[in-house]
């Protein structure tokens, strides 16, 4: 590695790629468009991809987003996915707040605890969404929320992997 980087110009191309700071927000906003995936579904078991990417980036890099980004991304997600205006604004901000609180008390980070934190954030967001649907007249039984939460939680490691890879890519870390 040493010799090759000396002989080529690779050593001058180290450090973050230009615009590296915009990767996390851009990925979250793009993830909102997963809601337009052309599968007409009957159960609504698809996870909220924007939320998963937001959480994954937040856990990967605590400083990935400015604090005001969460509500903005939430508003964008509401509009694209057709949720009630304000739903994702609230759940995204809430997820960031809870992540912040958990992080202050956490002594170390490992794979399992990271996943657990993500699971908590996902479950809270799904329950808020369920409660809002209930207030709006769609009284779905609580048990019906199990499947979407489990699917989202199981999908999280994949998203975290993608985010990890993208993070290394943008920082030219590897």
């Amino acid at each position, binding site marked *: 590695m040493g010799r090759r980087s000396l002989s080529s110009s690779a050593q001058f191309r180290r450090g973050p790629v230009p615009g590296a700071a915009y990767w996390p927000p851009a990925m979250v906003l793009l993830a909102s468009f997963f809601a337009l995936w*052309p599968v007409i579904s009957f*159960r609504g078991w698809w996870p909220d991809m924007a939320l998963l990417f937001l959480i994954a980036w937040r856990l990967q890099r605590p400083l990935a987003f*400015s*604090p005001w980004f969460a509500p903005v991304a939430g508003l964008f997600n509401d*509009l694209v996915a057709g949720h009630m*205006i304000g739903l994702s604004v609230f759940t995204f901000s809430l997820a960031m707040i809870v992540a912040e609180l958990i992080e202050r008390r956490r002594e170390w980070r490992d794979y399992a605890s990271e996943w657990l934190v993500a699971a908590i954030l996902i479950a809270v967001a799904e329950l808020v969404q369920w409660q809002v649907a209930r207030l709006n*007249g769609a009284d779905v039984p609580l048990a019906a929320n199990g499947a979407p939460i489990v699917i989202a939680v199981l999908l999280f490691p994949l998203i975290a992997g993608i985010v990890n890879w993208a993070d290394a890519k943008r920082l030219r870390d590897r």
Partner: protein
Amino acid sequence: MAPPMIRRSGWSRRAQYSLFFGFVALVAGAVLGLVLLTVSLVAPRTFADIRGAAIDATRPIAETGSAVAATVEGLASGAGDYWDAAEQNAALREERDELRRRLIEAEAVMRENIRLKQTIGLVERSREPIATGRIIGSSQDSPRRFAVLSVGSENGVANGMPVRSSRGLIGRVVDTGRFASRVLLVSDRANVVPAKLLRTDEAVIAKGRGDGTIDIRPLEVGRNPFRPGDIIATSGTGGLYPPLVPVAKVIRLDDDGAIAVPMARPAESGFAIVEPPFEPAALASDPLGDE
């Protein structure tokens, strides 16, 4: 590893402040979200324009995606059809003969019907569809059941109008953009359709269950009137949905009602017809488009 993975403000006053204000900003964001949410819940029409514009803006993506999906699906099922063409041919021929017999019967019944209606002086209003569009998307990450339709106010679509396919009722329009609109499906929890049991003409209420099935209850409590295979159709009560549009087919009974599946599966039907409300007054008086 470039930036720190764990944030510790340490003794730096400046770092402490920036952490604190970041937290305040997050809380402010959450409060803003709650306020917006409350407004959307209490006054659902407040954001109608923004929501309409958002459906319009996302329509090209949704439409492209659904076109690609339809092509792929068509290739797959096309190849399958080719595979067992001979068997299918025989089955279809048999079905055609059966249908021809039924058609003749139906024609006879129709003529009789017209004659009877003439005798009692019932006038059928002709019902022209307002627009025909494609279903290009659906809500996938929420407990609500919506679909996105590729026609909007440019085509005369307005909130509250009933939407059906050739096979049955799909739902009603709840958000209208200029080129696209959002439909509350019959399988949504908040969608209640006044209907009747076609076999006995008994009045029933059809309410979505949020998982692709519909809950059917008789209006009069008593003996469970349903049988698996029964067809539920709209009754026209309430004036929004036109009468005698098939809604669902009973698949299973529960204690005092039944579970049914919608006749029109939006995933299969593809095309949808927007109709004017059965009684135009139903739209003017009632804020039916919740959400």
